[in-house]
């Protein structure tokens, strides 16, 4: 990317702009979901699209997540390129069968004949006081399902490039916005560009430890890095960007360099995606590890409502710093 001028826009606006450009670009693309049409989405992430593209292409649906995903599957199976929205990631639960038993498996079950260029958009993560059923990060479930691709952008630039790749991909993809990042800003070029699914980004180079950070945790890791740098500790930060396919090579390369790894994500630690990443690292870089792979993530409880609890529940720069220090203070 050799942009000369920085064009700074909000994460949420990058989403909306990308959708508009995709709708303009390809007549087979349409959007459907609850309140995404005339109202523009509960977070206004779809604002203006219905006005520009009409009720036919930016479609309000009933509250019926199974049918919303099914709408996408059926339409994709016969040649369209649907984008269907689940307002909150927590609602994958009401649509799990359509996502994981139908969309994900159709191609395999049909011996390869089905092609499902389906993109599911949703919003994950905590931080808005939205409590146990509107704050979850459920990517660990999704990466356990062969047939799905899972994407979680950490900044507006990646958001655009990854969303374009999702919509153009011929497989079911799940694209998660972080609802506490909607207002965050960053450089985003105009026009469509792709970031390949399955390529991690090295956010920051460092030699003392590697932090693999997912979604909103990338910015927390950056804060941690700045603070640690003042103490002379240089961490490398890797943002996988795509959780399936997962760019394990980039992580392994870093692990072989720094020898100490901390993985940070917002989901509950137990059974979270950090477990899979850790398991793979120790498989591939066993001899290079000087300390156990650390996992910084949510405790084993539903997301609490109270701000005092929620703040402590979600990992942040402080908990990442602690995790890095734990890894460093361990003898190899």
């Amino acid at each position, binding site marked *: 990317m050799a942009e000369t001028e920085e064009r700074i826009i909000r994460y949420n606006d990058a989403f909306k702009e990308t959708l508009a450009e995709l709708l303009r670009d390809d007549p087979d693309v349409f959007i459907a979901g609850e309140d995404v049409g005339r109202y523009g989405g509960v977070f206004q992430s779809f604002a203006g699209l219905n006005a520009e593209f009409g009720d036919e292409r930016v479609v309000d649906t009933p509250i019926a997540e199974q049918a919303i995903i099914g709408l996408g599957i059926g339409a994709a199976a016969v040649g369209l390129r649907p984008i269907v929205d689940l307002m909150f990631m927590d609602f994958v639960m009401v649509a799990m069968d359509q996502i994981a038993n139908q969309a994900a498996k159709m191609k395999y079950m049909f011996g390869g004949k089905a092609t499902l260029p389906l993109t599911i958009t949703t919003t994950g993560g905590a931080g808005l006081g939205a409590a146990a*059923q509107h704050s979850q990060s459920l990517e660990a479930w999704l990466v356990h399902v062969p047939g799905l691709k899972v994407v979680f952008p950490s900044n507006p630039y990646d958001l655009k490039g990854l969303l374009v790749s999702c919509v153009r991909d011929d497989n079911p993809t799940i694209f998660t916005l972080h609802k506490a990042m909607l207002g965050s800003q960053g450089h985003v070029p105009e026009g469509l560009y792709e970031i390949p699914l399955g390529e991690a980004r090295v956010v920051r180079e460092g030699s003392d430890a590697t932090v693999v950070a997912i979604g909103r945790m990338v910015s927390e890791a950056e804060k941690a890095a700045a603070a640690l740098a003042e103490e002379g500790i240089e961490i490398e930060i890797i943002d996988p960007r795509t959780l399936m396919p997962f760019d394990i090579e980039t992580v392994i390369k870093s692990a072989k360099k720094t020898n100490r790894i901390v993985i940070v994500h917002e989901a509950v630690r137990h059974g979270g995606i950090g477990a899979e990443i850790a398991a793979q690292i120790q498989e591939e870089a066993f001899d290079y590890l000087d300390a156990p792979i650390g996992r910084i993530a949510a405790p084993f409880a539903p997301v609490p409502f109270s701000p005092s609890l929620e703040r402590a529940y979600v990992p942040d720069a402080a908990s990442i710093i602690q995790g890095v220090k734990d890894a460093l203070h361990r003898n190899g």
Partner: protein
Amino acid sequence: MPPTEQTKISKEVLFDLHRRMVRIRLLEEAAGQLASEAKIPGFIHLYVGEEAVASGGCVALKDEDQISSTHRGHGHLVAKGGQFKPMMAEFMGKATGYCKGKGGSMHISDLDLGMLGANGIVGAGVPIAVGAAFANKYKNNGLVTMAFFGDGSTNIGAFHEGANMACALHLPIVFMCENNEYAEYTARDRVMAITDVADRAAAYGMPGVIVDGMDVVAVYEAARVAVERARNGEGPSMIECKTYRFYDHAGVSGLGRTYRSDEEVKEWMERDPIKLFEAQLAKAKVMNEEQAKEIHAEIQAEIDEAIEFAENSPMPDPAVDMLTDVYTEAS
């Protein structure tokens, strides 16, 4: 409330209907105010305008009966006997709240009052209500369950499964639809091809009636019939209450929105269920303006106290409270 019917209802019940409505209204106005001052975190879905439904429904129930609720659950809890202090404290995320601050507005509950929980997932309360109704039948305890749900929720699978199962198992349950014509910011007629949710009752084999959801006596009368039916072992029924929310889906803005016209909002506000009922009560010489005012003032005082209580309450302590209540420990 034609006079003939009115005479059948005791003054006590009329006062009860009125009091529950006013309790909801004043609590909701206060909660809305606090939310707009950011003293209440998270999302808040106010019940203002729909008080006749929860009140009419719950007055028709016994205290031991159960209700299930929705994301818009404050009104249901108040109508079922919820106390202001732990409610207000819960809204603010305080340790003294009904849920120790862990649930908040969207999950407010008091199982001791038979309130099976507000619910963040549209439609999800319905199968749970069916389970409570099953238990009542199983125990043969004569109790009835009332499931409250919105028009929009009748488009989701959980509602359908619950309604059908209740009818198949012939359970003592009343399905109480709050048809406020919108699901969030989308009008009913854009997401369902029928006008009356009550038309769905026949699909399950239960009676479905439509009542004016702004007329608390009409709601109460219909609920009484349905509750009696359920209590007598005659199975489920559905009541559709035509109602309206005066505020936005969430928060307190009401007018000046794009998804519904101000004229429409104002027309419905003309039919404010509390004003309507107070006028009727005055006309029937059951309660005069003065008396009504006193009741409002008394309740407002209780709310002010609750706010103070909540504001002075401590937040939960992460070190102590984070990991409790995940599991029930063996005793």
